[in-house]
């Protein structure tokens, strides 16, 4: 578990990461509630975007390993690529799950209206894994950390815009409103809508299920071993 342990150490070694990992989630707890839309307090409504950012920041470690040549060393060492990747992902997942828990628990203690906090936590965790898997797949495409990050930023903006995080999904006109159902962020907002307004429990689990299937898909795509 050396790689796991060091992935944790390195994730917290970077000051910008620290802000992303601690300050932003804490700030999210205290953001106000809107009268009309969204139904969740702003901090919780936008938390998905934060998860997307945190995921790409954490997985930047994988690009660093590739550009610095660490991957070469590990390719020669008696360790499989699978175990390298899974230990890193496990570390990142631990951080994200912890973050979700802190945010939801903080909200409950602070007295935010969260509908069903436990279900919200489940949904956040599901989405955290999806975000992580997406970031891993994305990072596998790039050699430069900066470019991967900048281009992914625009993807995040588009994803959150179309997924109904900056804009109520109901406002999106007909043909597009169907197309956006393929976006993972749509299923997050779908799940969040269930958390606040309730409904068929099956719908909630469907949203989670879709997120988990996406996780598997992106992990399959992102698990390619690239040395250069």
């Amino acid at each position, binding site marked *: 578990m050396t790689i796991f342990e060091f992935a944790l150490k390195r994730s917290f070694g970077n000051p910008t990461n620290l802000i992303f990992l601690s300050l932003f989630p804490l700030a999210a707890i205290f953001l106000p509630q809107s009268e009309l839309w969204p139904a969740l307090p702003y901090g919780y409504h936008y938390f998905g975007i934060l998860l997307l950012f945190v995921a790409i920041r954490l997985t930047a470690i994988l690009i660093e390993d590739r550009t610095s040549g660490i991957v070469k060393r590990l390719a020669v060492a008696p360790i499989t690529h699978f175990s390298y990747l899974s230990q890193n992902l496990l570390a990142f997942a631990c951080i994200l799950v912890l973050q979700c828990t802190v945010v939801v628990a903080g909200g409950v203690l602070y007295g935010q209206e969260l509908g069903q906090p436990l279900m919200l936590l489940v949904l956040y965790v599901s989405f955290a894994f999806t975000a992580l898997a997406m970031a891993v797949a994305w990072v596998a495409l790039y050699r430069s950390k900066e470019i991967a990050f900048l281009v992914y930023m625009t993807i995040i903006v588009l994803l959150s815009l179309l997924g109904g995080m900056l804009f109520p999904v109901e406002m999106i006109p007909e*043909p597009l409103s*169907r*197309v956006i*159902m*393929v976006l993972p962020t749509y299923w997050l907002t*779908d799940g969040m809508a269930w958390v606040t307004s309730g409904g068929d429990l099956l*719908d909630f689990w*469907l949203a989670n*299920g*879709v997120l988990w*299937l*996406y996780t*598997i*898909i992106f992990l*399959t*795509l992102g*698990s*390619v071993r690239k040395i250069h």
Partner: protein
Amino acid sequence: MSPVPYVQGWRFLQIVALIHLWIAGDARPSLFLLILLLLILVCLRWRFPLPPWTAALDIGAAALFMPFTPLAGYALALPIFELALAGRWLLALPLAAGLLLAQGDPAVGLWFFAASLFFGGFARVSLRNERLYQQEVDEQRKARQELERFRTELLAAGRASAHQAELMERYRIARQLHDHLGHDLTGASLALQAYDYVKEPEEAAKLLAEVRRRIERSTDSLRETVHNATPVARIGIERLEQVVQGYGELGLHFVKTGDMQRIQAYQWDLLESCLKEALTNVARHSNATEVRIELQTGEAIVRLLVQDNGTLPDTGQPGTGLKNLQLRARALGGSLSISRGQGVLLVCVIPLEERGEPDEAADRG
């Protein structure tokens, strides 16, 4: 170009088609699970070579949703493609019956299936062709390498026989010198020594005549030996010089240093071929006006360097002529290197055989 990207592309395209059908249809959220399940299988096939039986997983996923949606019927196109790709297209036929179960548009489904079946079969054929082609290329390469090894052995054998022939010739000359020249000269020398002690003029005149006769005979014999030993064709450095003269129109500078005697016949052969090839290339393909040729013979190697001042760009791989020469040079334990910088530079290095008295050479060096 390999057909593999097209196969992968087709798989993803099928998923896109399903998504389109889903969106154009009722876009029920739960059906998206089916598409994602199939997408997982497609991704797995992209990453790892899955065995054909995994088509059963696609069929299973589709069957699960069959009662609820026509989409599941269309989804059978995926396993049909996989089966056709695996050459089990007969197994794909019963799947087409799924069309009857699905409530969708049978026309769309029919052509979707037919396209999958045909492209699957086509991809199978082109994948197999690619494999066969690669196999053939590899075998040819192997054959060429064996040929090369064989030629190396042949050259070594030729080298050995050349050496043998030289030894025999040397022995023949030595024997001739010893048998005829040697006897006669020894006899003449003895006769001259005896001449000093002979008092009688007749005896002396007889001895002198004998000496003259012997010397005359040995002169003849020497002339004959030398005549026999002198080759009719030009050899060694003269051949190289002749080659150089053949390209008089180019500005050629030929510099040679070292002991040319040490270069063996088979080595001259290679050097000549290299020089010819290099100069032909310059004359044919280059705009060079000056060519510098150096032949250096050292303690252990002979090195031929041909440098021109051409400015035409590199046209890629060296020609077969140079490739062959490279092989020949390697067969003689040497190397041939071509590089392009300011003009083309060709360097051929061949190791020389050990001198008869290596210790002495080392002491002086």
